[in-house]
């Protein structure tokens, strides 16, 4: 049996904003989100900025606490974990962020960057640590010489590889990848993507890949989750992605993506409106103001996520 690495159940998360300096108004970044990631499986989360995908990543990493709902690591609720168990599980869930310029400490040499998590989570043995550091650097395609360099002396692609090595040094089971390639060029991005795919196969890693780029998500994920304004609107398995009907929002994203493999089709597609502010959430289905197919019912009640085909769930009245 395959075990779940991470599971979140009915998560709600709200933040407060101060408006006019004193008035506080809450807004929901995540509404009733559930998902689970199994061993060796990767999940891609697709959506525009402000749809809550990064917040979801933070909750999985236990960097943010949900208002309601529960997070499970290896089948155990975070609420019931003892201190000792937490210490064992914590390093198993790692993260790589979008911008390798700001996620690496500029005053640390690469060796310090890699050794810090090793000392804390594995053991305080410099010799073994350095050996392991060289091993993971080799995995990500960097030479051992970079150990003595500072991040500023590395190129963008090399920096992202160091960030990846830092995640790998503690032998994780799951890595949350928050837009891992959007700060990189196409050529560098494809190098990093290939590495990630290799690790998935060879190290049996799971990923939660957060991205707004459809090709990236399709390349790396087994399941594709589409989010809109804090809600999951579609879950679809990659194998059937090009064979089934989709949520209107997924279709909009699909159409918006400029495809270098087909001639001038860019301007036949009309994209309506912008993502609404979570402070002024539309009634009913959140997507209805931008939806081509919206009807009366869409303005009044919110569709629930329900099974459509094998391997596909959609939240829409029209599908």
């Amino acid at each position, binding site marked *: 049996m395959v075990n779940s690495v991470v599971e979140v159940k009915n998560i709600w998360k709200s933040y407060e904003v101060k408006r006019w300096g004193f008035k506080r108004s809450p807004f929901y970044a995540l509404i009733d989100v559930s998902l689970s990631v199994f061993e060796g499986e990767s999940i891609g989360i697709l959506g525009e900025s402000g749809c809550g995908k990064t917040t979801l990543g933070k909750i999985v990493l236990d960097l943010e606490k949900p208002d309601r709902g529960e997070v499970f690591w290896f089948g155990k609720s975070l609420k019931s974990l003892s201190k000792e168990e937490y210490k064992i599980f914590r390093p198993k869930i790692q993260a790589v962020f979008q911008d390798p310029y700001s996620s690496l400490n500029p005053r640390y040499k690469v060796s310090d960057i890699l050794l810090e998590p090793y000392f804390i989570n594995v053991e305080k043995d410099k010799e073994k640590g350095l050996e392991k550091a060289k091993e993971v650097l080799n995995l990500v395609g960097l030479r051992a010489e970079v150990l003595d360099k500072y991040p500023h002396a590395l190129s963008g692609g090399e920096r992202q590889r160091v960030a990846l090595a830092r995640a790998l040094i503690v032998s994780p089971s799951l890595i949350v990848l928050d837009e891992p390639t959007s700060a990189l060029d*196409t*050529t560098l991005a494809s190098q990093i993507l290939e590495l990630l795919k290799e690790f998935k196969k060879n190290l049996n890693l799971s990923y939660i890949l957060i991205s707004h780029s459809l090709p990236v998500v*399709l390349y790396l994920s087994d399941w594709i989750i589409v989010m809109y304004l804090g809600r999951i609107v579609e879950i679809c398995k990659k194998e059937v992605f090009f064979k089934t009907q989709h949520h209107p929002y997924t279709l909009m994203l699909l159409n*918006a993506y*400029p*495809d*270098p*493999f087909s001639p001038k089709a*860019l301007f036949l597609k009309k994209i309506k409106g912008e993502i609404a502010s979570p402070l002024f959430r539309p009634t009913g289905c959140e997507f209805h103001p931008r939806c081509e197919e919206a009807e009366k019912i869409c303005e009044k009640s919110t569709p629930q996520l329900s099974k459509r085909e094998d391997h596909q769930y959609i939240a829409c009245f029209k599908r």
Partner: protein
Amino acid sequence: MPFLEVKDLVLGLKEKRLSLVDKVSFSLEKKEILGILGESGCGKSLTGFALLRLFPPGITRYSGDVIIDGISLYELSEEEVLKLRGRKVAIILQDPLSSLNPVLTIGEQIEEVLKYHFNLSKNERRERVIQLLKEVGVPDPELRIKSYPHQLSGGLRQRAMVAMALAGEPELLVADEPTTALDVTLQTQILELIYELNQKKDLTIVFISHDLGIIRGIASKVCVFYAGEIVEIAPTEELFNNPLHPYTQTLIESYPKEGKIKKILKGGVVNLAEKPKGCRYFERCEISCEEGKNNHPELIGVKKDHLVRCFRYG
């Protein structure tokens, strides 16, 4: 005569002799859209700025000229360039949050262009600003002119940038990665807007991007840059259907398609400070021909309008 002509443009560092953009030449007819494709640091943005005679600190022009509508940009005096910039040629930049002035309302910023280039009364200027914002698809322009950049969403900010570029009624527009900071859906909207301007106002556009999909969607002709040089120029469909340079070929094949990547371009760009003698793509090239090791290939015409810098052809 072409509308825009760039002749053997060489740009480089001020302090020491190191060219970052080397002998770049291309020409563009009126209403054409030229796409400039390349990795970061390949000199595509420097070339874009040079079309307005603007340079980032520490960069200067060594030789070459830019001719816009028969006017040699680099033979003009400073004052003459100021009159031209914004009026004949304008630019849209990548990140509207850092390129708009945060302490002025967008109305004031657009008005500044009108003040400088046209002799209009205050009311006329206001009317014009509202009209411009309406043209670029900003809703409620009467209210929006009083907004500061931080009060607008990313998409609206970029629209305000476009309105500002259009205020001087330019004939040539340089768009330097105008959608990189935006979501895909907004990206499509901004690209649509730029394309519409090209169609309706006969705007000639130089569009700089590293995204193959965008370039194929918008450009009529493409220049591929590599390490400061043009390695291939061709009409868009010709370039994508029949890429000749090994770099262009790998670039297209390294793009994820339906969940697969055909080829990965290994390694990094050559270090120009080491003054490579041979072909600049030699290290990463699949063929790595003998000739390319020590000799530098020239840009040669293979077919009509299709030029390539590679020893394999010629």
